[in-house]
């Protein structure tokens, strides 16, 4: 039995549809009820929904054997898990953005507003840039508009929110997509089950890339 943690929301539903299409379906999932955990003995799977940023925690601590999580979360929380496959969905990029047409002065400490302090710190450390991180939990775009920060480090999908607020992406830090992860111990003890799922994913999803 493989315990699978999926991120609540659109991405998770898409992942479930993909898993279901390669023989890991669990009809209970689609019923409208208040259950939290869904089991399908036949296909040997048990699914549950978790807050996207918590999926990695469930997998790292072995409550789930495998899970699907955005690369942004993996880079931010650096959980000790295997990252086995790039599902190539939920694609976006982690970018530095700021006021359109402007560029922050290079002779001052750069003020960076972000939900991803770890990613921002690692990125600017690699460039030896002196920064001050302002940790926010949402609506990051307001920070540079109100001059609270020089730039933001955030996920950019289509760039619409940026454009509508007279902001633009300055540089891309890293490309993001959904990743299939596994607990390091479960992977070993449930090697056959996990690698069967992984092989099926490669077979069916690789060519679509």
């Amino acid at each position, binding site marked *: 039995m493989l315990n699978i943690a999926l991120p609540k929301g659109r991405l998770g539903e898409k992942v479930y549809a993909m898993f279901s299409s390669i023989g890991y379906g669990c009809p209970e999932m689609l019923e409208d009820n208040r259950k939290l955990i869904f089991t399908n003995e036949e296909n040997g799977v048990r699914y549950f929904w978790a807050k996207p940023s918590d999926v990695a925690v469930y997998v*790292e*601590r072995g409550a789930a054997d495998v899970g699907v999580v955005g690369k942004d979360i993996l880079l931010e929380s650096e959980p000790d898990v295997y*990252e*086995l496959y790039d599902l190539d969905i939920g694609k976006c990029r982690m970018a530095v953005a700021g006021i359109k047409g402007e560029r922050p002065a290079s002779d001052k400490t750069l003020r960076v507003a972000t939900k991803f302090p770890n990613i921002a710190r690692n990125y600017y450390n690699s460039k030896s840039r002196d920064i001050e991180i302002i940790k926010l939990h949402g609506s990051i775009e307001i920070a540079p508009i109100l001059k609270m920060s020089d730039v933001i480090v955030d996920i950019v999908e289509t760039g619409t929110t940026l454009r509508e607020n007279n902001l633009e992406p300055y540089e891309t830090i890293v490309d993001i997509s959904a990743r299939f992860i596994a607990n390091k111990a479960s992977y070993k003890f449930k090697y056959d089950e996990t690698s069967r799922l992984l092989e099926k994913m490669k077979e069916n999803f690789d060519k679509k890339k």
Partner: protein
Amino acid sequence: MADFKGILRNDEKYIFGLRQLYESYGYKQFSMSKFEEYDFYLENKSFLKSESIITFNDPMTGKLLALKPDITLSIVKERIDSDFPDKFYYCENVYRASGTTKEIKESMQVGVEYVGELDRYSTCEVISLAAKSLETITPDYLLCVSHMGLVTALLDETDLSYSKKEKLIKLIATRSAHEIKLLCDNNGVDPSLTDKIVALASFFGDFEATLDEVKAIAPSDAARDAVNELDSLYKIMKSAGCSDKLRLDFSIMNDMSYYNGIIFQGFVDGLPINVLSGGRYDNLLRKLKKRSDAIGFAVYLDLLERYRESEKEFDVDIFIVYDDESDASFLSGEVRRLTKEGKSVRAEKHLNSDVKYRELYFVRDGRLVKNA
């Protein structure tokens, strides 16, 4: 000796089992001081798995001391090179940050260190002790083995910088074929070499079969030496009857600058992280200007506190409730009598809801009355 089975916690039981095992192979216990000078850790910071160290000033000398985050360093630093190896085992508390919140925790480690000239036998002795250590915990274990020499030999075929190689090692440790390809493609690594690195990262399974696959991608002399060492390890472990628990797994990683040969991690079914970690670390001794080789491992007992333990049904056999009128000497006599019968007894003035009891008694009219 009295039977302490009912009282000992899981982790405590394992300590006795492991000590017995190491003593039976002639290893001597090494008892350590609680503190070390901080400078010592500072010099070898990257050997430590966690960077946070608790420090304080010695009020007598003004020296900066540290609560020990690691045992191995302390054992090897005073090693005097000679023909005779040091064979030590230890059971010590260490203080290191762990988990996602990076809180510093006290945790119990039991481990083995062999410092001296290493040959095939002694290497295999330590590794089979690691396997036997896991076996004392549960028969459902896996000992995953990697070889730093093989990994570095393959990485040396690329002309990547040291920091890029370190990144690549991290990616092998997460088995991320897609990320390895990305890094190699971006840095002009030959595609056939990239495929080999990807293959190395994905190996897992039966030791013998995997080793054959490894041979196919290990052309250099250094890599061949590593394969031969793994091969002879497998043969010895096979004769010891624990080869089916052995896995080749190159996602097991340790710091390149300290570890050089075989490295390994132990897992038990039901625990999400490795409960045992070890390897060959000659490079550390070279850094400390010593000729000796060294290999060792540690078992993280704090992880085993809850391992496969069923909830205790009762805290005590008998709970006695008495009041101000009760005769103290009568009560103490009764408690003594019951404990002599082998029962655990707890006497209190009020019924304590935190304590789970098998039977409940009250002291009434100078007698013990069982609660119906």
